[in-house]
Protein backbone atom coordinates (compact mmCIF):
# COMPACT_ATOMS: atom_id res chain seq x y z
CA UNK A 1 0.00 0.00 0.00
CA UNK A 2 2.88 2.31 0.78
CA UNK A 3 3.89 2.33 -2.88
CA UNK A 4 0.78 4.32 -3.71
CA UNK A 5 2.06 7.22 -1.66
CA UNK A 6 5.47 7.05 -3.34
CA UNK A 7 4.02 7.31 -6.85
CA UNK A 8 2.28 10.56 -5.95
CA UNK A 9 3.99 13.94 -6.30
CA UNK A 10 6.27 14.20 -3.30
CA UNK A 11 4.95 17.47 -1.92
CA UNK A 12 1.22 16.81 -2.16
CA UNK A 13 0.92 13.24 -0.91
CA UNK A 14 1.43 13.32 2.87
CA UNK A 15 -1.24 15.92 3.72
CA UNK A 16 -3.71 14.20 1.40
CA UNK A 17 -3.03 10.86 3.06
CA UNK A 18 -3.22 12.36 6.49
CA UNK A 19 -6.56 13.90 5.73
CA UNK A 20 -7.68 10.61 4.26
CA UNK A 21 -6.92 8.37 7.21
CA UNK A 22 -7.61 10.85 9.94
CA UNK A 23 -10.19 13.52 10.62
CA UNK A 24 -9.57 17.23 10.48
CA UNK A 25 -8.43 18.81 13.79
CA UNK A 26 -11.84 20.42 14.27
CA UNK A 27 -13.67 17.11 13.88
CA UNK A 28 -11.18 15.42 16.20
CA UNK A 29 -11.75 18.05 18.83
CA UNK A 30 -15.53 17.80 18.58
CA UNK A 31 -15.51 13.98 18.76
CA UNK A 32 -13.05 13.91 21.66
CA UNK A 33 -15.09 16.55 23.46
CA UNK A 34 -18.31 14.60 22.96
CA UNK A 35 -16.73 11.36 24.21
CA UNK A 36 -15.23 13.10 27.23
CA UNK A 37 -18.52 14.81 28.06
CA UNK A 38 -20.36 11.50 27.84
CA UNK A 39 -17.84 9.64 30.01
CA UNK A 40 -17.76 12.52 32.47
CA UNK A 41 -21.53 12.51 32.81
CA UNK A 42 -22.02 8.73 33.03
CA UNK A 43 -18.90 7.57 34.90
CA UNK A 44 -17.01 10.39 36.62
CA UNK A 45 -19.93 12.40 37.99
CA UNK A 46 -21.52 9.47 39.92
CA UNK A 47 -18.11 8.70 41.45
CA UNK A 48 -17.55 12.27 42.57
CA UNK A 49 -21.09 12.42 43.93
CA UNK A 50 -20.59 9.31 46.10
CA UNK A 51 -17.52 10.84 47.76
CA UNK A 52 -19.18 14.25 48.10
CA UNK A 53 -22.35 12.88 49.70
CA UNK A 54 -20.35 10.55 51.95
CA UNK A 55 -18.57 13.55 53.47
CA UNK A 56 -21.63 15.83 53.37
CA UNK A 57 -21.98 15.77 57.15
CA UNK A 58 -18.30 15.97 57.87
CA UNK A 59 -15.52 13.51 58.47
CA UNK A 60 -16.62 12.61 62.01
CA UNK A 61 -20.06 11.53 60.77
CA UNK A 62 -18.37 9.58 57.99
CA UNK A 63 -16.23 7.64 60.44
CA UNK A 64 -19.19 7.06 62.73
CA UNK A 65 -21.23 5.62 59.84
CA UNK A 66 -18.61 3.11 58.80
CA UNK A 67 -17.72 2.16 62.39
CA UNK A 68 -21.29 1.59 63.46
CA UNK A 69 -21.85 -2.04 64.68
CA UNK A 70 -24.37 -2.85 61.92
CA UNK A 71 -21.96 -1.60 59.27
CA UNK A 72 -19.12 -3.62 60.76
CA UNK A 73 -21.18 -6.78 60.91
CA UNK A 74 -22.26 -6.19 57.29
CA UNK A 75 -18.60 -5.83 56.34
CA UNK A 76 -17.76 -9.07 58.17
CA UNK A 77 -20.53 -10.96 56.38
CA UNK A 78 -19.42 -9.52 53.03
CA UNK A 79 -15.87 -10.75 53.68
CA UNK A 80 -17.15 -14.16 54.76
CA UNK A 81 -19.27 -14.60 51.63
CA UNK A 82 -16.42 -13.57 49.34
CA UNK A 83 -14.09 -15.79 51.37
CA UNK A 84 -16.16 -18.84 50.45
CA UNK A 85 -17.33 -17.92 46.94
CA UNK A 86 -13.93 -16.88 45.54
CA UNK A 87 -11.89 -20.00 46.52
CA UNK A 88 -14.68 -22.35 45.38
CA UNK A 89 -14.84 -20.60 42.01
CA UNK A 90 -11.05 -20.61 41.81
CA UNK A 91 -10.98 -24.42 41.98
CA UNK A 92 -13.82 -24.64 39.47
CA UNK A 93 -12.24 -22.06 37.16
CA UNK A 94 -8.85 -23.74 37.07
CA UNK A 95 -10.37 -27.21 36.57
CA UNK A 96 -12.66 -25.96 33.78
CA UNK A 97 -9.86 -24.08 32.02
CA UNK A 98 -7.53 -27.09 32.29
CA UNK A 99 -9.87 -29.57 30.64
CA UNK A 100 -11.11 -27.11 28.01
CA UNK A 101 -7.77 -25.59 27.03
CA UNK A 102 -5.54 -28.67 27.18
CA UNK A 103 -7.76 -31.41 25.77
CA UNK A 104 -9.97 -32.03 22.76
CA UNK A 105 -13.31 -33.66 23.44
CA UNK A 106 -16.85 -33.72 22.15
CA UNK A 107 -19.30 -31.27 23.59
CA UNK A 108 -16.62 -28.73 24.46
CA UNK A 109 -18.42 -25.72 23.03
CA UNK A 110 -21.58 -26.78 24.86
CA UNK A 111 -19.56 -26.90 28.09
CA UNK A 112 -18.24 -23.37 27.47
CA UNK A 113 -21.79 -22.12 26.90
CA UNK A 114 -22.93 -23.77 30.15
CA UNK A 115 -20.09 -22.10 32.06
CA UNK A 116 -21.31 -18.75 30.70
CA UNK A 117 -24.92 -19.45 31.60
CA UNK A 118 -25.06 -17.56 34.94
CA UNK A 119 -24.06 -14.36 33.10
CA UNK A 120 -27.30 -14.57 31.16
CA UNK A 121 -29.46 -15.02 34.25
CA UNK A 122 -30.92 -11.98 35.99
CA UNK A 123 -29.49 -11.59 39.52
CA UNK A 124 -33.02 -11.73 40.87
CA UNK A 125 -33.63 -15.09 39.23
CA UNK A 126 -30.22 -16.27 40.49
CA UNK A 127 -31.46 -15.66 44.01
CA UNK A 128 -34.92 -17.04 43.32
CA UNK A 129 -33.68 -20.47 42.21
CA UNK A 130 -32.26 -21.07 45.68
CA UNK A 131 -35.54 -20.04 47.28
CA UNK A 132 -37.27 -22.59 45.01
CA UNK A 133 -34.80 -25.26 46.10
CA UNK A 134 -34.38 -24.57 49.80
CA UNK A 135 -37.29 -22.28 50.77
CA UNK A 136 -40.22 -23.38 52.92
CA UNK A 137 -42.13 -24.46 49.79
CA UNK A 138 -39.02 -25.61 47.95
CA UNK A 139 -37.85 -29.06 46.89
CA UNK A 140 -35.78 -29.65 50.00
CA UNK A 141 -37.84 -27.26 52.17
CA UNK A 142 -39.71 -29.85 54.22
CA UNK A 143 -36.59 -31.94 54.89
CA UNK A 144 -34.61 -28.86 55.91
CA UNK A 145 -37.38 -27.71 58.24
CA UNK A 146 -37.50 -31.16 59.89
CA UNK A 147 -33.78 -31.06 60.53
CA UNK A 148 -33.86 -27.41 61.59
CA UNK A 149 -31.42 -26.27 58.90
CA UNK A 150 -31.87 -22.78 57.49
CA UNK A 151 -30.35 -22.09 54.10
CA UNK A 152 -32.57 -19.48 52.49
CA UNK A 153 -33.04 -16.11 54.24
CA UNK A 154 -29.84 -16.96 56.07
CA UNK A 155 -26.11 -16.89 55.40
CA UNK A 156 -25.75 -20.24 53.52
CA UNK A 157 -28.25 -19.10 50.87
CA UNK A 158 -26.40 -15.81 50.42
CA UNK A 159 -23.14 -17.73 49.93
CA UNK A 160 -24.80 -20.06 47.40
CA UNK A 161 -26.37 -17.21 45.41
CA UNK A 162 -23.10 -15.26 45.32
CA UNK A 163 -21.15 -18.35 44.26
CA UNK A 164 -23.66 -18.97 41.46
CA UNK A 165 -23.48 -15.39 40.17
CA UNK A 166 -19.67 -15.22 40.23
CA UNK A 167 -18.97 -18.77 39.00
CA UNK A 168 -18.05 -17.92 35.38
CA UNK A 169 -15.62 -15.09 36.17
CA UNK A 170 -12.33 -16.95 36.81
CA UNK A 171 -13.04 -19.66 34.23
CA UNK A 172 -13.83 -17.01 31.59
CA UNK A 173 -10.55 -15.26 32.34
CA UNK A 174 -8.41 -18.42 32.14
CA UNK A 175 -9.94 -20.34 29.23
CA UNK A 176 -8.91 -17.99 26.37
CA UNK A 177 -5.52 -17.37 27.97
CA UNK A 178 -4.68 -21.06 28.34
CA UNK A 179 -6.10 -21.91 24.92
CA UNK A 180 -3.78 -19.39 23.36
CA UNK A 181 -0.74 -20.68 25.19
CA UNK A 182 -1.36 -24.23 23.97
CA UNK A 183 0.06 -27.23 25.77
CA UNK A 184 3.51 -27.68 24.19
CA UNK A 185 5.38 -26.56 27.31
CA UNK A 186 3.36 -28.85 29.59
CA UNK A 187 3.82 -31.77 27.22
CA UNK A 188 7.56 -31.19 27.22
CA UNK A 189 7.61 -31.17 31.02
CA UNK A 190 5.65 -34.43 31.22
CA UNK A 191 7.87 -36.11 28.61
CA UNK A 192 10.90 -35.00 30.63
CA UNK A 193 9.46 -36.80 33.65
CA UNK A 194 7.60 -34.13 35.63
CA UNK A 195 4.53 -35.22 37.51
CA UNK A 196 1.11 -33.67 36.90
CA UNK A 197 1.11 -31.25 39.82
CA UNK A 198 4.74 -30.30 39.28
CA UNK A 199 3.88 -29.42 35.70
CA UNK A 200 0.97 -27.29 36.83
CA UNK A 201 2.90 -25.41 39.53
CA UNK A 202 6.15 -24.95 37.62
CA UNK A 203 4.98 -24.55 34.01
CA UNK A 204 1.30 -23.61 33.77
CA UNK A 205 0.93 -21.36 36.80
CA UNK A 206 3.80 -18.97 35.94
CA UNK A 207 2.28 -18.57 32.48
CA UNK A 208 -1.23 -17.79 33.65
CA UNK A 209 -0.53 -15.97 36.92
CA UNK A 210 -1.53 -12.49 35.73
CA UNK A 211 -4.73 -13.65 34.11
CA UNK A 212 -5.52 -15.70 37.18
CA UNK A 213 -4.85 -12.73 39.45
CA UNK A 214 -7.19 -10.55 37.42
CA UNK A 215 -9.86 -13.24 37.50
CA UNK A 216 -9.54 -13.44 41.27
CA UNK A 217 -9.76 -9.66 41.69
CA UNK A 218 -12.83 -9.41 39.47
CA UNK A 219 -14.51 -12.39 41.14
CA UNK A 220 -13.85 -10.87 44.54
CA UNK A 221 -15.22 -7.46 43.55
CA UNK A 222 -18.37 -9.03 42.16
CA UNK A 223 -18.81 -11.29 45.17
CA UNK A 224 -18.55 -8.36 47.56
CA UNK A 225 -20.77 -6.10 45.51
CA UNK A 226 -23.54 -8.53 44.54
CA UNK A 227 -26.92 -7.04 45.33
CA UNK A 228 -29.90 -8.50 43.49
CA UNK A 229 -29.27 -12.21 44.07
CA UNK A 230 -28.23 -11.71 47.69
CA UNK A 231 -31.19 -9.43 48.33
CA UNK A 232 -33.64 -12.19 47.36
CA UNK A 233 -32.14 -14.81 49.69
CA UNK A 234 -31.22 -12.49 52.55
CA UNK A 235 -33.40 -12.33 55.63
CA UNK A 236 -32.70 -8.57 55.73
CA UNK A 237 -31.94 -8.80 59.42
CA UNK A 238 -29.69 -5.99 60.57
CA UNK A 239 -26.44 -7.19 62.04
CA UNK A 240 -27.15 -10.76 60.89
CA UNK A 241 -27.97 -11.22 57.22
CA UNK A 242 -26.93 -7.87 55.81
CA UNK A 243 -24.02 -7.42 53.46
CA UNK A 244 -22.50 -4.02 52.71
CA UNK A 245 -24.59 -3.45 49.55
CA UNK A 246 -27.77 -4.39 51.45
CA UNK A 247 -26.76 -2.09 54.28
CA UNK A 248 -26.39 0.74 51.75
CA UNK A 249 -29.95 0.06 50.59
CA UNK A 250 -31.41 0.01 54.10
CA UNK A 251 -29.73 3.27 55.10
CA UNK A 252 -30.79 4.93 51.84
CA UNK A 253 -34.41 3.85 52.26
CA UNK A 254 -34.34 5.24 55.82
CA UNK A 255 -33.22 8.60 54.38
CA UNK A 256 -29.85 8.34 56.18
CA UNK A 257 -28.25 9.51 52.97
CA UNK A 258 -24.86 10.56 54.37
CA UNK A 259 -24.42 7.24 56.20
CA UNK A 260 -25.61 5.32 53.14
CA UNK A 261 -23.10 7.08 50.89
CA UNK A 262 -20.37 6.63 53.51
CA UNK A 263 -20.80 2.84 53.36
CA UNK A 264 -21.16 3.10 49.57
CA UNK A 265 -17.83 4.93 49.43
CA UNK A 266 -16.13 1.83 50.87
CA UNK A 267 -17.55 -0.25 48.02
CA UNK A 268 -16.54 2.48 45.57
CA UNK A 269 -13.01 2.28 46.90
CA UNK A 270 -13.08 -1.46 46.33
CA UNK A 271 -14.16 -0.84 42.73
CA UNK A 272 -11.39 1.72 42.15
CA UNK A 273 -8.76 -0.62 43.61
CA UNK A 274 -10.09 -3.37 41.34
CA UNK A 275 -9.76 -1.12 38.29
CA UNK A 276 -6.24 -0.04 39.25
CA UNK A 277 -5.13 -3.67 39.77
CA UNK A 278 -6.74 -4.63 36.50
CA UNK A 279 -4.78 -1.95 34.66
CA UNK A 280 -1.54 -3.04 36.37
CA UNK A 281 -2.20 -6.68 35.49
CA UNK A 282 -2.82 -5.77 31.86
CA UNK A 283 0.53 -3.96 31.70
CA UNK A 284 2.26 -6.98 33.20
CA UNK A 285 0.55 -9.27 30.71
CA UNK A 286 1.65 -7.09 27.83
CA UNK A 287 5.21 -7.03 29.15
CA UNK A 288 5.24 -10.79 29.61
CA UNK A 289 3.93 -11.20 26.07
CA UNK A 290 6.62 -8.91 24.67
CA UNK A 291 9.35 -10.72 26.60
CA UNK A 292 8.38 -14.17 25.42
CA UNK A 293 8.32 -13.41 21.71
CA UNK A 294 7.05 -16.85 20.72
CA UNK A 295 3.98 -16.64 22.96
CA UNK A 296 1.41 -14.45 21.33
CA UNK A 297 -0.15 -11.34 22.88
CA UNK A 298 -3.20 -12.15 25.01
CA UNK A 299 -6.28 -10.91 23.24
CA UNK A 300 -8.47 -8.31 24.85
CA UNK A 301 -11.11 -10.10 26.80
CA UNK A 302 -14.51 -8.89 27.78
CA UNK A 303 -15.06 -9.02 31.47
CA UNK A 304 -18.76 -9.46 31.57
Amino acid at each position, binding site marked *: MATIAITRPAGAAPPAIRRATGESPAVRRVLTGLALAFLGLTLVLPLVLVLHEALAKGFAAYLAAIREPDALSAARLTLLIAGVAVPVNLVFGVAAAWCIAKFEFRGKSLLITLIDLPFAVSPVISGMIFVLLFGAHGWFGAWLADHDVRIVFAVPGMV*LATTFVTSPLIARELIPLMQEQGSDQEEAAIVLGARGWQTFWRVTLPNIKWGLLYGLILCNARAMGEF*GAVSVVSGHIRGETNTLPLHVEILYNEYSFAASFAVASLLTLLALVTLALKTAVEWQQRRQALEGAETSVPTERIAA
Partner: protein
Amino acid sequence: MRHKSRSVLPGFGVSLGITCTYLSLMVLLPLATVFTRSAELSWPEFWSTVTSPRVVASFRVTFGASLAAALVNSVFGFLVAWVLVRYRFAGRRVLDAMVDLPFALPTAVAGIALTTLYAANGWVGKYLQPLGIKVSYTWLGITVALIFIGLPFVVRTVQPVLDDLELEVEEAAASLGARRWQTFTRVVLPSVAPALLTGFALAFARAIGEYGSVVFIAGNMPMRTEIVPLLIITKLEQYDYAGATAVAVVMLVASFSLLLTINLLQRAARRRVEA
Protein backbone atom coordinates in the same frame (compact mmCIF):
# COMPACT_ATOMS: atom_id res chain seq x y z
CA MET B 1 -7.09 -26.69 14.61
CA ARG B 2 -5.19 -29.31 16.52
CA HIS B 3 -6.23 -32.88 16.08
CA LYS B 4 -5.15 -34.85 19.04
CA SER B 5 -6.63 -38.22 19.78
CA ARG B 6 -4.63 -38.80 22.95
CA SER B 7 -2.77 -36.29 25.07
CA VAL B 8 0.22 -37.02 27.28
CA LEU B 9 -1.07 -34.46 29.80
CA PRO B 10 -2.67 -35.81 32.96
CA GLY B 11 -5.74 -34.61 34.81
CA PHE B 12 -8.35 -34.76 32.08
CA GLY B 13 -10.73 -37.01 34.00
CA VAL B 14 -10.37 -35.11 37.26
CA SER B 15 -10.74 -31.62 35.79
CA LEU B 16 -13.66 -32.57 33.56
CA GLY B 17 -15.23 -34.38 36.51
CA ILE B 18 -14.95 -31.36 38.79
CA THR B 19 -16.25 -29.04 36.07
CA CYS B 20 -19.27 -31.16 35.18
CA THR B 21 -20.19 -31.99 38.79
CA TYR B 22 -19.93 -28.35 39.83
CA LEU B 23 -21.93 -27.11 36.84
CA SER B 24 -24.63 -29.72 37.41
CA LEU B 25 -25.07 -29.08 41.12
CA MET B 26 -24.42 -25.37 41.24
CA VAL B 27 -25.87 -24.13 37.94
CA LEU B 28 -28.01 -26.64 36.05
CA LEU B 29 -29.98 -28.18 38.92
CA PRO B 30 -30.92 -24.80 40.44
CA LEU B 31 -31.89 -23.40 37.03
CA ALA B 32 -33.91 -26.50 36.24
CA THR B 33 -36.13 -25.85 39.26
CA VAL B 34 -37.49 -22.74 37.54
CA PHE B 35 -38.72 -24.84 34.64
CA THR B 36 -40.03 -27.74 36.75
CA ARG B 37 -41.79 -25.34 39.10
CA SER B 38 -43.47 -23.49 36.27
CA ALA B 39 -44.55 -26.86 34.83
CA GLU B 40 -46.82 -27.19 37.87
CA LEU B 41 -48.98 -24.54 36.22
CA SER B 42 -51.29 -25.61 33.44
CA TRP B 43 -50.76 -23.92 30.10
CA PRO B 44 -53.80 -21.59 30.44
CA GLU B 45 -52.70 -20.65 33.96
CA PHE B 46 -49.18 -19.95 32.75
CA TRP B 47 -50.48 -17.91 29.84
CA SER B 48 -52.86 -15.83 31.91
CA THR B 49 -50.06 -15.11 34.41
CA VAL B 50 -47.57 -13.87 31.85
CA THR B 51 -50.18 -11.91 29.89
CA SER B 52 -51.79 -10.20 32.88
CA PRO B 53 -51.73 -6.41 32.39
CA ARG B 54 -49.20 -5.71 35.16
CA VAL B 55 -46.75 -8.34 33.85
CA VAL B 56 -47.10 -7.17 30.26
CA ALA B 57 -46.54 -3.57 31.38
CA SER B 58 -43.36 -4.60 33.19
CA PHE B 59 -42.12 -6.46 30.09
CA ARG B 60 -42.75 -3.30 28.09
CA VAL B 61 -40.82 -1.16 30.59
CA THR B 62 -37.87 -3.57 30.84
CA PHE B 63 -37.50 -4.38 27.16
CA GLY B 64 -38.22 -0.81 26.03
CA ALA B 65 -35.73 0.83 28.36
CA SER B 66 -33.13 -1.88 27.68
CA LEU B 67 -33.50 -1.36 23.95
CA ALA B 68 -33.21 2.43 24.28
CA ALA B 69 -30.17 2.13 26.54
CA ALA B 70 -28.45 -0.38 24.24
CA LEU B 71 -29.04 1.93 21.26
CA VAL B 72 -27.59 4.95 23.09
CA ASN B 73 -24.64 2.79 24.16
CA SER B 74 -24.06 1.61 20.60
CA VAL B 75 -23.67 5.21 19.42
CA PHE B 76 -21.70 6.59 22.35
CA GLY B 77 -19.83 3.35 23.04
CA PHE B 78 -18.58 3.38 19.47
CA LEU B 79 -17.62 7.04 19.78
CA VAL B 80 -15.72 6.37 23.03
CA ALA B 81 -13.93 3.35 21.53
CA TRP B 82 -13.04 5.38 18.44
CA VAL B 83 -11.65 8.30 20.42
CA LEU B 84 -9.70 5.98 22.77
CA VAL B 85 -8.15 4.03 19.90
CA ARG B 86 -7.52 6.75 17.32
CA TYR B 87 -6.78 9.95 19.23
CA ARG B 88 -4.12 10.87 21.77
CA PHE B 89 -4.98 13.26 24.60
CA ALA B 90 -4.13 13.83 28.23
CA GLY B 91 -5.84 11.41 30.60
CA ARG B 92 -6.61 8.87 27.89
CA ARG B 93 -5.25 5.90 29.84
CA VAL B 94 -7.17 6.83 32.98
CA LEU B 95 -10.40 7.13 31.00
CA ASP B 96 -9.66 3.84 29.28
CA ALA B 97 -9.41 2.15 32.69
CA MET B 98 -12.51 3.98 33.92
CA VAL B 99 -14.67 2.44 31.20
CA ASP B 100 -14.75 -0.79 33.25
CA LEU B 101 -16.15 1.02 36.30
CA PRO B 102 -19.71 -0.30 35.79
CA PHE B 103 -18.29 -3.87 35.93
CA ALA B 104 -16.54 -3.21 39.21
CA LEU B 105 -18.90 -0.83 41.02
CA PRO B 106 -21.61 -2.61 43.03
CA THR B 107 -24.94 -1.96 41.35
CA ALA B 108 -26.55 -0.62 44.53
CA VAL B 109 -23.90 2.12 44.72
CA ALA B 110 -24.51 3.05 41.09
CA GLY B 111 -28.23 3.08 41.82
CA ILE B 112 -28.19 5.52 44.73
CA ALA B 113 -25.58 7.74 43.03
CA LEU B 114 -27.57 8.06 39.80
CA THR B 115 -30.84 8.62 41.67
CA THR B 116 -29.32 11.47 43.70
CA LEU B 117 -27.67 12.93 40.61
CA TYR B 118 -30.89 13.04 38.57
CA ALA B 119 -33.37 13.87 41.33
CA ALA B 120 -35.14 17.22 40.94
CA ASN B 121 -32.63 18.90 43.28
CA GLY B 122 -29.64 16.83 42.14
CA TRP B 123 -26.51 18.07 40.35
CA VAL B 124 -27.89 17.16 36.93
CA GLY B 125 -31.60 17.04 37.74
CA LYS B 126 -31.81 20.70 38.75
CA TYR B 127 -30.81 21.76 35.24
CA LEU B 128 -33.33 19.41 33.65
CA GLN B 129 -36.18 20.38 36.00
CA PRO B 130 -36.78 23.85 34.46
CA LEU B 131 -36.91 22.21 31.03
CA GLY B 132 -39.71 20.02 32.27
CA ILE B 133 -37.60 16.86 32.06
CA LYS B 134 -37.98 14.46 34.97
CA VAL B 135 -35.45 11.63 35.10
CA SER B 136 -35.43 10.07 38.56
CA TYR B 137 -38.52 7.94 39.27
CA THR B 138 -39.47 7.82 35.58
CA TRP B 139 -38.90 5.59 32.56
CA LEU B 140 -36.07 7.93 31.57
CA GLY B 141 -34.30 7.22 34.84
CA ILE B 142 -34.42 3.47 34.21
CA THR B 143 -32.81 4.10 30.82
CA VAL B 144 -30.09 6.27 32.38
CA ALA B 145 -29.18 3.48 34.83
CA LEU B 146 -29.13 0.90 32.04
CA ILE B 147 -26.87 3.14 29.93
CA PHE B 148 -24.41 3.20 32.84
CA ILE B 149 -24.52 -0.59 33.22
CA GLY B 150 -24.22 -1.42 29.52
CA LEU B 151 -21.54 1.03 28.35
CA PRO B 152 -18.45 -1.20 28.90
CA PHE B 153 -19.97 -4.05 26.89
CA VAL B 154 -20.05 -1.96 23.70
CA VAL B 155 -16.70 -0.22 24.25
CA ARG B 156 -14.83 -3.40 25.16
CA THR B 157 -16.25 -5.32 22.20
CA VAL B 158 -15.60 -2.62 19.60
CA GLN B 159 -12.23 -1.39 20.89
CA PRO B 160 -10.05 -4.43 20.00
CA VAL B 161 -11.58 -4.60 16.53
CA LEU B 162 -10.83 -0.91 15.90
CA ASP B 163 -7.33 -1.53 17.23
CA ASP B 164 -6.76 -4.32 14.70
CA LEU B 165 -8.09 -2.40 11.70
CA GLU B 166 -5.30 -1.85 9.23
CA LEU B 167 -4.80 1.78 8.33
CA GLU B 168 -3.57 0.73 4.90
CA VAL B 169 -7.07 -0.22 3.87
CA GLU B 170 -8.30 3.26 4.71
CA GLU B 171 -5.31 4.76 2.88
CA ALA B 172 -6.18 2.65 -0.14
CA ALA B 173 -9.77 3.86 -0.05
CA ALA B 174 -8.57 7.44 0.19
CA SER B 175 -6.05 7.04 -2.62
CA LEU B 176 -8.82 5.64 -4.79
CA GLY B 177 -10.67 8.90 -4.26
CA ALA B 178 -12.96 8.17 -1.31
CA ARG B 179 -13.72 11.01 1.04
CA ARG B 180 -13.21 10.53 4.76
CA TRP B 181 -16.93 10.04 5.41
CA GLN B 182 -17.18 7.55 2.54
CA THR B 183 -14.18 5.65 3.85
CA PHE B 184 -15.80 5.58 7.27
CA THR B 185 -19.20 4.33 6.14
CA ARG B 186 -17.96 1.97 3.40
CA VAL B 187 -14.71 0.61 4.89
CA VAL B 188 -14.53 1.16 8.65
CA LEU B 189 -18.15 0.63 9.62
CA PRO B 190 -18.64 -2.71 7.78
CA SER B 191 -15.54 -4.17 9.48
CA VAL B 192 -16.70 -3.02 12.91
CA ALA B 193 -20.39 -3.84 12.41
CA PRO B 194 -20.30 -7.45 13.76
CA ALA B 195 -18.50 -6.32 16.91
CA LEU B 196 -20.88 -3.39 17.33
CA LEU B 197 -23.86 -5.71 16.97
CA THR B 198 -22.36 -8.11 19.53
CA GLY B 199 -21.76 -5.23 21.93
CA PHE B 200 -25.34 -4.06 21.45
CA ALA B 201 -26.66 -7.56 22.18
CA LEU B 202 -24.45 -7.94 25.27
CA ALA B 203 -25.56 -4.56 26.64
CA PHE B 204 -29.20 -5.40 25.93
CA ALA B 205 -28.90 -8.85 27.54
CA ARG B 206 -27.33 -7.38 30.66
CA ALA B 207 -29.95 -4.63 30.83
CA ILE B 208 -33.05 -6.83 30.80
CA GLY B 209 -31.94 -8.66 33.95
CA GLU B 210 -30.51 -5.65 35.78
CA TYR B 211 -31.94 -4.95 39.20
CA GLY B 212 -29.65 -3.12 41.66
CA SER B 213 -28.86 0.02 39.71
CA VAL B 214 -32.42 0.40 38.43
CA VAL B 215 -34.54 -0.24 41.49
CA PHE B 216 -33.57 3.02 43.24
CA ILE B 217 -34.10 5.33 40.27
CA ALA B 218 -37.17 3.61 38.82
CA GLY B 219 -39.86 4.80 41.20
CA ASN B 220 -41.33 1.29 40.94
CA MET B 221 -44.89 2.30 40.07
CA PRO B 222 -46.85 -0.77 38.91
CA MET B 223 -47.89 -0.49 35.25
CA ARG B 224 -45.55 2.45 34.65
CA THR B 225 -42.03 2.13 36.04
CA GLU B 226 -41.97 -1.41 37.37
CA ILE B 227 -39.23 -3.58 35.87
CA VAL B 228 -39.58 -7.35 35.48
CA PRO B 229 -36.94 -8.33 38.09
CA LEU B 230 -38.75 -6.21 40.69
CA LEU B 231 -42.07 -7.79 39.78
CA ILE B 232 -40.51 -11.22 40.34
CA ILE B 233 -39.35 -10.13 43.80
CA THR B 234 -42.79 -8.72 44.61
CA LYS B 235 -44.42 -12.01 43.63
CA LEU B 236 -41.90 -13.96 45.73
CA GLU B 237 -42.59 -11.76 48.73
CA GLN B 238 -46.31 -12.48 48.33
CA TYR B 239 -45.45 -16.22 48.24
CA ASP B 240 -46.79 -16.35 44.68
CA TYR B 241 -44.02 -18.77 43.68
CA ALA B 242 -45.92 -20.08 40.66
CA GLY B 243 -46.41 -16.56 39.31
CA ALA B 244 -42.79 -15.62 39.96
CA THR B 245 -41.48 -18.71 38.17
CA ALA B 246 -43.80 -18.16 35.21
CA VAL B 247 -42.42 -14.65 34.70
CA ALA B 248 -38.88 -15.93 35.32
CA VAL B 249 -39.30 -18.60 32.63
CA VAL B 250 -40.15 -15.92 30.06
CA MET B 251 -37.09 -13.92 31.13
CA LEU B 252 -34.79 -16.96 31.04
CA VAL B 253 -35.99 -17.96 27.58
CA ALA B 254 -35.35 -14.40 26.35
CA SER B 255 -31.89 -14.32 27.98
CA PHE B 256 -30.85 -17.72 26.68
CA SER B 257 -31.98 -16.86 23.14
CA LEU B 258 -29.89 -13.69 23.37
CA LEU B 259 -26.89 -15.69 24.63
CA LEU B 260 -27.28 -18.06 21.69
CA THR B 261 -27.50 -15.13 19.26
CA ILE B 262 -24.39 -13.55 20.76
CA ASN B 263 -22.46 -16.83 20.48
CA LEU B 264 -23.48 -17.19 16.84
CA LEU B 265 -22.53 -13.56 16.14
CA GLN B 266 -19.11 -14.04 17.73
CA ARG B 267 -18.53 -17.27 15.85
CA ALA B 268 -19.44 -15.55 12.58
CA ALA B 269 -17.12 -12.64 13.38
CA ARG B 270 -14.25 -15.04 14.19
CA ARG B 271 -14.79 -16.86 10.92
CA ARG B 272 -14.57 -13.54 9.07
CA VAL B 273 -11.29 -12.76 10.78
CA GLU B 274 -9.85 -16.19 10.04
CA ALA B 275 -10.99 -16.17 6.40
